[in-house]
């Protein structure tokens, strides 16, 4: 049986018929071709699939597709503005070279976006704790933290002043 779900992805309304045994991550990647969110572990350990659901960062691999009805989802594809200008966080990740292979980057960007919305000027320690649900096997985290620190210093909650 298929379940009708009406929800918003990056502020665009979406209507889909989904299987119950699919996850939000499956829907984003396979139905909507939004492949920014990645499957790392599929069990809520690595954070590579982090998206913002109803204002809060969640692991897309742990949300069932039928739960999407009425939800607002923001993915990494929704961070740039309509003209394609990257968000301050995305720019800072480029500037600080806060990525190597890039697999974990969309997850980090979504977690950091949510973190700065809740806490616009976090300390280094708060940033480190804030991204603890995202694993990166390349960078050693230092440059990621520096990128987020840069944005925390120069913006108000990740939004250009």
């Amino acid at each position: 049986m298929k379940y009708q779900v009406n929800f918003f992805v990056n502020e665009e309304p979406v209507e889909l018929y989904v299987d119950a045994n699919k996850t939000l991550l499956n829907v984003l990647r396979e139905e909507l071709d939004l492949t920014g969110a990645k499957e790392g572990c599929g069990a809520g350990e690595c954070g590579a699939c982090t998206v913002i659901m109803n204002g809060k960062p969640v692991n897309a691999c742990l949300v069932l597709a039928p739960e999407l009805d009425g939800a607002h989802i923001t993915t990494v594809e929704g961070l740039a503005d309509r003209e394609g200008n990257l968000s301050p966080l995305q720019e800072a990740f480029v500037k600080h070279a806060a990525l190597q292979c890039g697999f974990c980057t969309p997850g980090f960007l979504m977690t950091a976006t949510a973190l700065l919305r809740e806490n616009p000027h976090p300390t280094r320690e708060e940033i480190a704790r804030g991204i603890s649900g995202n694993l990166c096997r390349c960078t050693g985290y230092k440059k990621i933290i520096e990128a987020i620190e840069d944005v925390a210093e120069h913006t108000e909650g990740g939004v250009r002043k």
Partner: protein
Amino acid sequence: MKQFNYLAPKTLPEALQMLADYKESAVLFNGGTDVVVRLRDRLIAPDYVVDIKHIPGLDDISFDEQNGLTIGACATMNAIGENEAVCKHYPFLAKAALSVGSRQVRNRATCIGNICNASPLADTGTPLLACDAVILAEGPDGRREIPIRDFFIFVRKTSLKPGEIVTAIRVPYIAGAEGVFTKVARRREVDLSTVCATVLRCGDEFRFAFGSVAPTPLRLVKTEELVRGKKPDAALIEQAVELARSEVAPISDVRASKEYRMDIVGLIVRRGLETLAK
């Protein structure tokens, strides 16, 4: 994941009816951080998944001194850990809630789910045990209150009857109580507990609740009896540490050896008594 039917009851009676109709073929679905993984790994393969998050009021958290703290079944770990009353009156519970998983997981995972899973190392188990919390359940035979000490039966086994749904947990308010939650794990964030514990002082009484040292989270009743009403001097602390070690039955596993866990139990009892005795 095997194919299943997703049900989203809007009321508690509706949800209870679904459990009554579909019995063992139904699984309750709350935050999903455990159930989705179990579905994916095919450890469970239900025909019906009953999502209780659409039932109004189940995510409430309320507090007054008379009734204590009431945590609704669908209140998330982050909602609990950031709740003003929880932080003020039960800081050790807030700390336990925020020690679970990652921020992303805590935005979905619930305290009631944690308790109903009945893992030996349930992080929110020990603060609730230390406070003598009461589980509120509704089922085919009506409403029932279960003291948390009677709730955990064995690894992943609770005293819930078939068809029952936990609607909330009530945590008594103990004026002047002071508690310490400790989680020992291999890494600081996003890990399961090697040992977790809550030590609570209420007047001249100490309570010790431990997780991951027995098949269920448990209270060290003999150790509590030993120190009740006494000033914990060095000799008494030594006795309490020894007695505490005899009350737990940890195993060796991937996270730590039995001996290590024993030592940690003694250490937590010692530090708890030293910190909280005034």
